[in-house]
């Protein structure tokens, strides 16, 4: 436990100094609030429109598809981690086939998306 005390010290010093500078600049610094200063900084040109933008709906579809395929990898990692021990017990072939089946089903899903045009970007 004692080994962590230096880290704790570093973290607390960082927090204290950050807070200190924020508070000091707020208290001591001059404050002239003009409309130009209060607008959001967009590379120096005057900003236009609201920040409450509508996103193109394609982003949403891609995000959904990504979410599903992303989570399927959840099953891949434990399989990879324990694969060696299965090989040692002579079950490597079976486990490989099992993962192939799983992957096959994923590929079927991907092919379906592709053929149905869900992957087209216009």
């Amino acid at each position: 436990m004692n080994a962590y005390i230096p880290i704790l010290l570093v973290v607390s010093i960082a927090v204290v100094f950050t807070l200190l500078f924020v508070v000091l600049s707020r208290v001591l610094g001059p404050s002239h609030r003009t409309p130009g200063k209060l607008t959001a900084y967009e590379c120096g040109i005057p900003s236009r429109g609201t920040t409450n933008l509508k996103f193109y709906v394609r982003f949403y579809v891609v995000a959904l598809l990504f979410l599903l395929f992303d989570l399927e990898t959840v099953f891949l990692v434990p399989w990879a981690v324990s694969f060696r021990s299965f090989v040692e017990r002579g079950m490597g072939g079976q486990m490989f086939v099992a993962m192939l089946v799983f992957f096959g089903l994923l590929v079927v899903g991907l092919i379906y998306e592709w053929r149905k045009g869900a992957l087209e970007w216009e």
Partner: protein
Amino acid sequence: MPDLTTLHVHLGHYLTLSAILFFIGVSGVVFRRNAIIMFMSIELMLTAVNLTFLAVSRQLGDHQGHVFVLFALAVAAAEAGVGLAILVEIFKRRGSIDVDDFRKLME
């Protein structure tokens, strides 16, 4: 300052925490009317359950709980995917995701 070395976290703490999280989720589904927030509350409930599984699994030194969590995660993602897809379609048509506006069925 309490001595950090003796501050053990027991199974009971995990179970209590997950019970609290679970019922925060339940109250979110029951009391909030925004469909997205209801979704998030359901996800919170599932996360709480996952915490229970993991805590118990660790306590027992058993892997079944871990396996259960992986499946629960994948299922939750699939559910969210389908739910958000339906929700977008409803929003396109209705311009609102407040479930109190979903009254067509209640006539």
